[in-house]
Structure formats: C-alpha cells, structure tokens
C-alpha cells in the first residue's frame, strides 16, 4: 500500500481541515506554497544543505551490540536522531518550515512545545534566519522541562506560559492557534508534529521522511536486507511517521508505534489513543482521540511531556485501521527502566519519549532471534535528567 492523503488532506476518514473559517484560506495558501516549494529544486537544495551542514545529517544507524547480546534475540539497530543539532529529530521539520515561512514572506514564527524539543528547534531556526519567535508552552511542561525553557530564551525566543486546561501540550497548541487566528497575515505557525489541519500532517511527515529514507539505505549497506521491524514512539507521531513512511510499501517490515501507557489504563492516566480512545476532532484533525462520552477532551498523563497528548496524528490512525502498523503502549516505569538499560549497555541516554520505543524493542527482542529491529532514538535524554533523577532515587543517594 501507499499512504497519501486526498485533496482535502484525508487519510481514509482521518485528517481533514477542522478549523474556524478565519484559518481556512491561510491553510489553503500554506498548502499552495508548500506544493510549489516541493517542486522547486532550489528549495530542496537549500534544505538538503542545511540538513547536512547545519543539522548534521545523515545520522548514524548504530548496531547496539551489547544491548542485543544482553537480550539474546533480535539484532537491534538504533537510528541516532538524538545526535542531530538541538538533540532531537524536530530540527528536520523546523528547517523545512522556516524556509517555507521565509518564502511566504512571514517575519514572525510561533510554535507550541511539549517536551521543549520542538520549541528549542524552532527557536534555533528562527535565530538562524533572524525571525521573531514566540513559543507557547504549558506551565506544567515548563516545570518539567526547565532547562529547555532557558535554552529557548537563550536563543532569543519568547516563551509564553499557558495556564489553561491541563497546562500541557494540548493547551499550548490551543494558545498557538489563538495567536495564529489573530496574527495570521504576518505569522507562520510552525506546528511541530504530524497533527493539526491539512497540510500540516503531510508536510511535517515529508520533512521527517528523510529519517526513513536514510535508514533504508543504511540497513541495506549493513545487512543487505530490509529490517523485520521498525519501532518508534508516537505522541503526535512525527518521528514515527518520518521513519515509517518509506517502509509502508514494504509489507514484510513490521511498523510498531509505541504510545505512552502512563500510570495505567484508566482514562486520564495515559496517552494511549488507540486502546483508550475513539475517533474525534481536536485542533484541526479527525483521528483517534482520548475523550469522555460527552465529547470533552480527556486529560492525559505521561512521564514524557512529548507523548502527553490526547490525539494521534491522522496518518497513524489510517495505518492502524488498515492494519499496516501496530500500536502498543509502554508505561512510565517501563520507559524509565528501558532508558537505564540503554544507558548502561550502550552509553546512550535516550529522551523519555524515545525510551518508550526502546522499552517495546526490549520486550520483543528476546523472542525474535535472527531478526533485525530498527529503533528510532528520536531525541537525547539530557533534557530529562531531572525526571530520571526523581524516578531513579537509588542512584541519587
């Protein structure tokens, strides 16, 4: 199968454009600008140059020998997006969108951030291009990710605390949308995940699809064949769709998305949209959504701010319904334990988000002798040191 949306941005029934009328024409304009940019070889050349010489692509595909031996099953390869400039995959999309913003003549860029990685990447590209940058961040996430708040400010961005709702990513997106609806003529909304109204899910995916394209080439160079499974964490789902997309037609490659299982299966305790949610509309897109039976958006929980969101990106919903990708969840404790295992066997401390993917790979690897797994390490764990400390008290005596 191939996975492309229809003209209205629908992946099957999912996706679309569910926003106030004020934003509809600007979204149409953005879509046109994006389509023109994609066809422009000069745009692609400039993006490729920045990805290579500024962000640090290609990232390594690293065979985790000690971890693989410890588990005694599958050979685990790690796609090292954590080695990119700013410490996560988010920079891929930010470079693409900032070039687009410049092309559209927008001098002001706004963004939302959960874990702070997208905010840092946005602040970075705005500094690089001399654009005004405002980042919306939930108060709860600002508390959890203090270091990234300071990094954004150091890069010249204004960080606006969002105190409504659950004071996390969802509320930051709502506040960014309110800013955009007000300042749409001068401002580009640099959305950081494969979410929101069309064309964002497809545009964000395209800018991250370089992850999968590199992985495919690298695994052929190393192993001479396709991997048996590709594992990635799914919040909105941008790193996952980035590494999955190239492999979608390769039906023999299992695509495994890992959501946040949080503290448990009760509504409000996790962010596992496929097991705990039902289709609905939030912030521009129709997809699997954590909600109550009155259609109010449910609160979510994850130790990882980047996975703590009520809606999953619409293309993932489609891949789920078509049976092309499988979605599972890993809890807070499993993710932290997995991060510790990776740190002690390989000397790599993953972001809490990426640790969820590592947890699933650790779970499956022992039963998969002779198989090859690729795990997307979407970000590095430095930003999460405070949370690791709180949760690994035995190391902090």
């Amino acid at each position, binding site marked *: 199968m191939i996975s492309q949306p229809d003209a209205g941005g629908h992946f099957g029934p999912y996706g679309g454009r569910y926003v106030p009328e*004020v934003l509809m024409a600007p979204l149409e304009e953005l879509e046109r600008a994006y389509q023109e940019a994609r066809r422009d070889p000069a745009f692609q050349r400039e993006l490729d140059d920045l990805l290579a010489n500024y962000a640090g692509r290609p990232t390594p595909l690293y065979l985790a020998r000690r971890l693989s031996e410890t588990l005694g099953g599958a050979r685990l390869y790690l796609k090292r997006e954590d080695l990119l400039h700013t410490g996560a995959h988010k920079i891929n999309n930010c470079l693409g969108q900032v070039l687009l913003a410049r092309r559209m003549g927008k001098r002001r860029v706004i963004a939302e951030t959960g874990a702070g990685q997208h905010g840092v990447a946005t602040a970075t590209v705005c500094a690089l291009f001399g654009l005004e940058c405002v980042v919306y961040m939930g108060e709860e996430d600002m508390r959890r990710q203090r270091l990234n708040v300071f990094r954004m400010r150091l890069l010249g961005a204004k960080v606006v605390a969002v105190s409504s709702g659950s004071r996390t990513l969802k509320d930051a997106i709502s506040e960014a949308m309110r800013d955009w609806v007000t300042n749409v003529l001068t401002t580009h909304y640099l959305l950081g995940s494969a979410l929101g109204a069309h064309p964002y899910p497809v545009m964000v995916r395209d800018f991250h699809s370089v992850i999968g394209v590199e992985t495919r080439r690298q695994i052929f160079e190393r192993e001479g064949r396709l991997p048996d499974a590709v594992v990635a964490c799914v919040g909105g789902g941008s790193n996952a769709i980035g590494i999955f997309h190239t492999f979608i037609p390769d039906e023999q490659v299992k695509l495994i998305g890992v959501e946040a299982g949080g503290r448990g299966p009760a509504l409000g305790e996790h962010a596992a949209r496929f097991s705990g949610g039902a289709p609905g509309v939030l912030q521009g897109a129709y997809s699997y959504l954590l909600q109550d039976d009155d259609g109010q958006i449910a609160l979510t929980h994850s130790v990882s701010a980047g996975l703590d969101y009520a809606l999953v990106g619409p293309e993932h919903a489609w891949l789920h319904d078509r049976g092309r990708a499988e979605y599972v969840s890993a809890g807070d404790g499993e993710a932290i334990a997995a991060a510790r295992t990776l740190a002690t066997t390989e000397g790599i401390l993953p972001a809490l988000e990426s640790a969820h993917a590592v947890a699933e790979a650790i779970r499956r690897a022992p039963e998969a002798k002779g198989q090859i797994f690729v795990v997307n390490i979407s970000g590095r764990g430095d930003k999460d040191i405070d949370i690791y400390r709180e949760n690994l008290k035995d190391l902090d005596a």
Partner: protein
Amino acid sequence: MPETRIGRLFERLRGEGRKGLIAYLTAGDPAPERTPALAAALERGGAALIELGVPFSDPVADGPVIQRGAARALKAGTRLRDVIEIARRIRRQSEIPLLLFTYLNPVLRYGFEALARDAAAAGIDGCLLTDLSVEEAAPHVEAMRRAGLDTVFLAAPTSTPERLKLVAKYSSGFIYLVSRTGVTGESATLGDAVAPLVASVREISGLPLAVGFGISRPEHVAQVCRVADAAVVGSAFVHLIERNLEDASLEARLEAFTRELTAPLGEAQR
C-alpha cells in the same frame, strides 16, 4: 413565509426596517439551572435571537472570557444533552429564536442525526459549528435540514471569494460574519474589515448578515448595524455574568446592559 423562527425573525425585522441584537450565552454558566432566567433577561432587554454556547474543554476560537465561561459550565456538569434541556425550558416560556453554538467534537460524539432530532424537538432553531469547515459539513447540513433546522456558517475577512460562495451555499437563516481575524472577545474599537466583508457577501447572497467578534458597546452595535442586519455580542455578556456571579441582581443587570446595547437599534426604528 420562511419555515424557521430565524427566517421569520429576519423577515419581520426587514419589514419593520429594523436591525437585531444577537446575544451569546455559554449554556450552563454558572450553572445549567440559571441559564433560562439569564436568557429571559436578555430577551426583556431586547435581544432578538439567543446563541446557546455548548461548553467545550478546548475552545480554540475563544478568548479568555468565553474560555472561563465554558470552564465554569463544565465544572457545573453541563453536557450537550443538558444544553438541549435548557433550550427546552427556554422554549416553554418564549418564542425567541435559539441557535446552538458549538465545537464539533461534542456533536460528533452525540451524532448529527440524534442532535438534529433532539434539538428540533426541544425548540432549537439552528446550529453553528465553530470548527466545522464547509468542506467537511455535508453530513451535518443534511441532518439539520431534514429536521427543519437552520445551519449558520462563519465568513471571515480572510475568506476568499470562492470560500464565501461555499459559505453562502451551506448557510440558512443568516450568515455570521467575523469582524476581524482573532478569537472571541471584547475590544475598544471595531476594525475596518466589516463594511467590505458585508459588501462582498451581499453580492453573492440574499441571506441576512450578522456581524460578531469584538462587539461589546452600544456604539459598536450601531456601527455594525449601519451595514449588517444584526450584531452579535458574546464576551461582554459572559464577562458581566462573571463579575456578578454571586449577585442576586445579575438578571436585572444583564437586562439593563442588553437595553443599552439595543438602544441604538430603537433609535433606528423611530
């Protein structure tokens, strides 16, 4: 003769050479049992139509005042079915047209067909879905029309001529023009986007036109109604409710403020 209360309202206003005030309330703010009396106060003050806002947890098109109103209503346990019940109670005492004003997700959960049926039975006259674009609106419009309800859509200063045609095509009752780019909320002055937007929609539609967002003072109502058929006031009412939550004279204050807002329309009538 128009089939709906909304259609008949605008026909009557047109016949009398008058303009109307549309008043927005978040249903259930501060509690579901309070809303019918607040609506009655708006009607006594001269409101011609009442928009009943369905509280939603993530109101992306609303400014802080209506966000807080929605939060109070949700805290009081207001659900979509309670809003329909509130409408039923208003309808027992009044013939004022009622428009349900809501975000899409609670409606998706309730079901388009079920909502159309239950809303019509309760005496609701139409429905506006803030985050439902005309492109995605067919199932909603079909269900509402079958139940004899009006479907109101938003037109914005950013809407292209092609989009305005679609908005006009799917709208019935009236078209709601957004006065500015932005979220709901009071403002000191109205921008200059209103008159050109009214003019371009008049060219392609014979439907009545209401203008909302940022209208909070009698002079705004007067200014808007020089070109449009009605002015919508929302945040200013919700703000007044918020400032007088514990005040026994809340209804009287609401009525008095509504009378101030409709005063310029009375002058037009004379």
